């Protein structure tokens, strides 16, 4: 079960109580939101979207636009992760602020930022650039955090002997990066890049189809194509669009990720050969191709050699300190003072704005949060209901896994947000369809995390325990109660944390949407945020976005964290 064990290598960050760092981070988030909302006051009241063609021949171009956005955001995420993770890993003082910051950032529902980011960017930038940039920022915020975590975690777990060897052989920073750090982190980085891309599609589609009221923020791309097709009820175009999207995802998987995985097997730290290493037909093809070998010998190797020659200077090699540096305190204080002053000023201004939110709106927000919470819970329960039996079936049964695994992987990477407009066409005919549609979107976006976790958990149940339960003639129910459910518990919790985060996120696009020129909404905090954007009610926008973020962070801290800790302590089979 290489695929699954690879994904779940990243642990939850170290468990902390709700501390001053969290408060600081939330303050920063509040101030950022406030600044965004302030800027949003200047947004034009109507924004015209691009004209979207439904001809199939535009699809390659649209696909390239979509992939281009993803690639730009991913490149940004990777660079950000490499720098941020390295600084956090090697500077103890910076680490104390940077890791809690990351921890809160990743539990913030990113989509709730979308309206604020879009509005504030369109206030200061030309419309076409603003929407592009907003989509990239949005995708970035969905891709970066797990990359930072895995890189940071790799850097802090490099075996001491390799650190010492690189010091005794006088590697400089570049040599160390290229020979030790990057190879050691390679597998984790690649797996998490795959996850990041899968998550990124979801947000890309959401950003591409975002329209509220007179403000049309759509972007030329596959998501907008699908949205427009659903708008026009053009079923032929819908089929073309979905086909193109699936094709792009499959191609990326086969031509980029699989080969990378097959290649990265060499970076496995295991000192024994992997029994079934990841394989890729495309990688094998490249290995055999003369062109590829020629390129490797004539271009890649000389290039690397030239870079090395440039960056590794004889005699210039300095020893790498093994002890992590404590940076100069005065520098930190010098930075903290103005930033702190800015934050306090921003907080005060934000408070001012919030005070003017009428009580009726606050109660609407409270109702909305409650309604969205109910939807999130429903989606979670439905997801648990089907993923546990199916996950156990796949996880304990290699034959079934061999058939279902590739299908599940493809299904999981098709972003729910792309299919949503299509789904709506159907569900709008059903009574209560809006509510069902909202729950279904949440479900589609989040059930895969649970499924993958359950599969990983089921596959990790030791065979001898399974045999023992058979030998003891445990009844089916007894077996589930004494073995399977306890063994799955930590995995289910891990999956549920991610899934519920995803469900909250989805509420923004699930609870309010425009289709065929009409806007539909249900009661919920997501709908409040979206309609506040439409109506230009920026106080409400700030209040609702903040309420949602606070709710999610609090639920994470007070509920999921405790469960997670319990699960780790009592049920981990290691």
């Amino acid at each position, binding site marked *: 079960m290489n695929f699954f064990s690879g994904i779940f290598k990243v642990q939850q960050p170290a468990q902390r109580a709700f501390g001053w760092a969290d408060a600081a981070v939330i303050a920063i988030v509040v101030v950022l939101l406030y600044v965004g909302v302030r800027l949003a006051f200047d947004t034009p009241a109507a924004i015209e979207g691009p004209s979207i063609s439904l001809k199939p021949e535009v699809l390659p171009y649209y696909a390239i636009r979509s992939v281009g956005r993803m690639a730009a955001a991913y490149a940004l995420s990777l660079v950000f992760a490499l720098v941020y993770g390295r600084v956090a890993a090697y500077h103890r003082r910076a680490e104390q602020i940077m890791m809690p910051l990351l921890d809160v950032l990743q539990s913030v529902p990113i989509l709730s930022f979308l309206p604020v980011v879009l509005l504030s960017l369109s206030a200061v930038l030309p419309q076409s650039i603003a929407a592009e940039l907003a989509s990239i920022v949005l995708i970035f915020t969905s891709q970066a955090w797990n990359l930072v975590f895995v890189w940071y975690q790799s850097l802090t777990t490099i*075996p001491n*002997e*390799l650190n*010492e*060897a690189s*010091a*005794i*052989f*006088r*590697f*400089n920073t570049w*040599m160390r990066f290229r*020979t*030790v750090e990057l*190879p050691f982190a*390679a597998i984790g980085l690649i797996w998490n890049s795959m996850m990041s891309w899968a998550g990124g599609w979801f947000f890309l589609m959401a950003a591409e189809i975002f329209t509220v009221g007179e403000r049309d923020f759509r972007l030329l791309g596959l998501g907008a194509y699908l949205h427009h097709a659903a708008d026009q009820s053009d079923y032929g175009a819908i089929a073309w669009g979905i086909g193109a999207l699936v094709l792009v995802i499959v191609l990326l998987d086969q031509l980029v990720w699989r080969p990378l995985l097959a290649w990265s097997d*060499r*970076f*496995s*730290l*295991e*000192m*024994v*050969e992997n029994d079934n290493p990841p394989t890729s037909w495309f990688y094998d093809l490249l290995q055999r191709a003369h062109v590829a070998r020629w390129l490797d010998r004539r271009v890649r190797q000389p290039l690397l*050699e030239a870079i*090395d020659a440039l960056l*590794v*200077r*004889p*005699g*210039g*090699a*300095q*020893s790498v300190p*093994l*002890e992590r540096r404590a940076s100069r305190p005065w520098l930190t204080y010098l930075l903290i003072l103005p930033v702190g002053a800015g934050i306090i000023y921003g907080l005060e201004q934000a408070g001012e704005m919030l005070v003017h939110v009428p009580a009726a709106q606050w109660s609407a927000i409270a109702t909305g949060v409650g309604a969205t919470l109910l939807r999130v819970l429903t989606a979670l329960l439905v997801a648990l209901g089907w993923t546990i039996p199916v996950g156990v079936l796949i996880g304990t049964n290699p034959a079934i896994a061999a058939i279902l695994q590739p299908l599940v992987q493809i299904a999981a990477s098709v972003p729910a947000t792309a299919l949503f407009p299509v789904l709506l066409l159907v569900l709008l005919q059903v009574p209560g369809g809006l509510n069902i549609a909202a729950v279904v979107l949440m479900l589609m976006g989040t059930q895969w995390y649970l499924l993958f976790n359950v599969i990983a958990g089921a596959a990790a149940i030791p065979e001898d325990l399974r045999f023992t339960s058979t030998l003891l003639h445990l009844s089916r129910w007894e077996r589930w109660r004494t073995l399977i459910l306890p063994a799955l518990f930590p995995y289910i919790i891990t999956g549920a944390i991610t899934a519920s985060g995803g469900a909250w996120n989805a509420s923004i696009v699930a609870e309010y949407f425009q289709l065929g020129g009409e806007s539909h909404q249900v009661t919920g905090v997501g709908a409040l945020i979206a309609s506040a954007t439409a109506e230009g009610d920026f106080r409400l926008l700030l209040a609702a976005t903040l309420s949602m973020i606070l709710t999610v962070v609090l639920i994470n801290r007070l509920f999921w964290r405790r469960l997670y800790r319990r699960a780790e302590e009592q049920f981990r089979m290691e």
Partner: protein
Amino acid sequence: MAHLLELKGITQKYGRGDRRFTAVDNVSLAIDEGEFVALLGPSGCGKSTLLRIITGLNQPVEGQVLYRGQPLRGVNPHATIVFQTFALFPWLTVQQNVEVALKARGVPPNLRTVRAIDLLDMVGLDGFETAFPRELSGGMRQKVGFARAMAVEPELLCLDEAFSALDVLSAESLRGELLELWQSGSIPTKAILMVTHNIEEAVFMADRVIVMDKQPGRVIADQKIDLPHPRQRKSPRFLEVLDRVYATLAGQTQPEYVEMGTAPGEAGVTRALPDVSIGELSGLLEFLNDMPANRTDVYRLEQELNLSTDDVLELTEAAELLGFATIAKGDIMLTPLGETFAEASILARKEIFASRIRRLPLFKWLLAMLKAADKGRLDRDVIRLALELEFLPEDAARQVEIAIQWGRYAELLAYDDNTETLYQETGTAVAA
């Protein structure tokens, strides 16, 4: 002329404030060109720490390292280490692993390749250039480690337990090959410093053995080994030297108050419980009980009981601390109490053991704490944190484990793994 390497009053400490531990205490020594020195001692005596200070990987808190008379700053460019765990980069081929050391020094590609291949030939790895470390056996991996170390032509070659992760035969052949290279002068190395806990290995290879002991890590002996090479392990003279070195290490009996130490939190050093299981200890006492006159040479235990030097030292220390055996001049002899224990029934053994460990200050303290605690229960972490005042965190955790193991056996205390609490054994133990 200045010594090749000189240490002046090296002291290394870890931790901060109250929780400060001396890993190496005031060590001074010198190594000259042409010497093959073994740094020998039980685990935890600071020999590896000392090696890291000598090579400049770590800085001491006090004292000075002089290399050819010059104070050392940063990593010593003339020294290299062959690591116990090989420290090869798993993602590089054998040849790349050797080349990378040259690359870091800015050696151009063609020269690099030629030298790497030469060195791999020298250690007998020709044909394996493109293999990855995981495809090789432990012995072959360590050969790569040696080739990589030789590649930078070190003046001072340091071996950090370089043979201890290998199987017996590979270790033996690699030792022989190193000695041959060293004695034939075919490598530019000026001196070898070998850190090891294996006394026989030290006596077999080195010209000089520096013996260290723990708590705190310090040098307790510095002896020349003037046996001619090749040395015969079974020869009477070899065994005599072996016995002598063992005598310096085992049975470093000090006055009773030093040996027993003080309770945690009190002034003075708390004696760590030796890291042995009851089964091993009983096995040792039974073995001695079967020997003529209940005595034997300490060095023989290693072969007879199939133990590592470390295990032998920990076991003999435990036996002596509990009064089951005495050690003198490299011989270990059962005391009447030890003899009684070896011949006693299971229950009687428990009683004897309990009466002996009650005397240890650490146990006295622990039992008193339990008695004073609410409902006679104490959190495992409370004890661990209290012990961290005396020991390094990982050692403190280990000490708690040993105390639980011993205490359970002696039925002095019980432990609940679910709640991680220790509690007083009430005598009416409920069968779990």
